[in-house]
């Protein structure tokens, strides 16, 4: 048991994202209201964004903005350990855009569903569909 405690503590970002993912997944599966499902979906996506962002982070590193002219020769070389990895963050800009777009499409669909069924409770909609 004890050997798992450091694993848990040092890799806490993974546990956080997994917990968030599961919360989102649970909402998508278990919630009856379509908008709540969408919220769950957003949490789910955000969990993954968080995961990416966290893997770019390093202890003792700063934002990746390079200073010019701070030395000569090998001193001019950038030490990667001084800067956090920008690539996952940049990727997540795209992922955020995607998740916003997904949200938009989902809400648009929900509006259409509401226009038709006058409710957003899934069981009521299914009831209506069964009757028709």
């Amino acid at each position, binding site marked *: 048991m004890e050997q798992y405690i450091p694993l848990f503590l040092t890799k806490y970002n993974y546990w956080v994202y997994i917990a968030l993912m599961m919360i989102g*997944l649970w909402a*998508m599966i278990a919630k009856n209201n*379509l908008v709540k*499902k969408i919220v769950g*979906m957003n949490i*789910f*996506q955000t969990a*993954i964004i968080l*995961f*990416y962002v966290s*893997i770019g982070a390093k202890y003792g590193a700063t934002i990746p903005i390079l200073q010019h002219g701070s030395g000569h020769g090998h001193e001019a070389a950038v030490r990667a350990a001084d800067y956090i990895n920008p*690539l*996952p963050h940049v*990727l997540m800009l*795209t*992922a955020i855009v*995607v998740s916003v*777009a*997904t949200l938009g*499409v*989902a809400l*648009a*669909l*929900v509006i*259409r*569903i509401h226009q*038709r069924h006058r409710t957003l409770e899934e069981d009521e*909609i299914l009831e209506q*569909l069964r009757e028709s």
Partner: protein
Amino acid sequence: MSEQYPALVVIGPLLCALLVSVAGWLRPRLCLPFALLGLGISAAASTGLLAQVLTSGPVTYRLGGWAPPWGIVYQVDNLNAVVAALVSWVALFNLAASYRAVMTDYPEKIGPFYTLYVLAVTGMLGMVVTGDAFNLYVLLEITSLTGYALIGLGGGRAPLASLNYLFLGTIGASFYLLGVGYLYIVTGSLNMADLAKLLTPLYGSLALLAAFAITLVGLWMKMAFFPLHAWLPNAYGFAPSPAASLLAPLMTKVMVYVMIRVMISVFTVEFILQEVALSQFVVWLAVAAMVAGALLALGQRDLKRMLAYIVVAEVGYMVGGAWLGNKLAMTGAILHIINDAVMTFCVFLAAGCIYQKTRGTAFEDLQGLFKKMPWTMTALAAGALAMIGVPPFCGFFSKWYLIRGGLEAGHWGFVIALLFSSLVNVVLFFRIFEIAFFEPMSHGHGGHEGHGEHGGAVALAEAPLSMLLPLMAAALGLVALGLATGPLVEKIILPIIPAGLG
């Protein structure tokens, strides 16, 4: 010009999508020409690309001139060249065929419809040509989002079906993204070729296995691989016909392509066969997909939904073939991507033609159709025969390779499931043909008295020519593809089958 083909394949429709959307505001009549232009460019470019790849080997295209592994590259070999050509041509034919249906069903949404349509195809083509794992995710989401919207345009239960598809599709895409994240953690690269190189020393690592498994589950979700297929029947069954005949043939096939690409180009077959060692399990899942898809299709009373379940079974064919772990089965799986795209297109387009005239595809709507729509039904019959696997229609040949692969692997379950699903396809399609041929039954028609003109009330009411011509082209394509199997396998597929397969 020709060195720009990989970019043109994607940029052409992307720019035209913008034009279409502007035209949608100003001149709706110009939407279709712009859309045709965009897909025409990609069809021409992808055909040129295929010729180029076949004559002078794989093409690497650096977007913006950035060298890999930092820049995004389009990496085109035989496999994606042929899939890209397939996608762009099918999309182009379907676009031409959709003209009348869009005019009658969505007169006020012409702009949005064609914009979404062209964007969806852009995404698919991008997924096919790209050599970058993250780029693939973005393009996947472009296709998916436009796909949700296209399906959501349909009436009735379509928005709800689309929302369910959106939920499951988002989970699938997120899983893929997560898997790519793990790959990035262990390698620091997103370029597929680079990944393949960096991953080799890492075989045996648990993180790698996790990355592979998560990616795979994500892709399976998007391709509706049993038991992750729940979204597909409703989404494709309730989608507007022009959207259904775009997405049903292409979306699942592109995802199968992506799976095969990930299997052979990012990971390697050695990794899959030796490290993952899940082949048996996955092939049995594929068997379950074939059997369940066939049985569920039997329970449907609507042509489109029945076809949607057949798609579920067909996905089983391809995934099973890709995982059987020998050259023959992999050949069959890749050949089936091509063949199945065309035959699914043919049957869905035929269903669209039927819907155009009867305003329904429930089995009761199909009565007397052989009299009413002889050409459409002929094309449907051709598609059905291809799906059953009757030579010289193309479906026979991919089944031929898949069965041989199953025999070679000694996997009798797969072989029997394939034959079973072929037999069920006979039942499924001939049930339709019986309704269309025999019903409505004329009464008082015993023995041979009173034969006259049978069912005289049924008059010829064929779908518009703009739909029929692409449909006929697809039906003829089924035979042409079948007869071209020899060169297709010899020249295009065999060279890219990895040597590691037994």
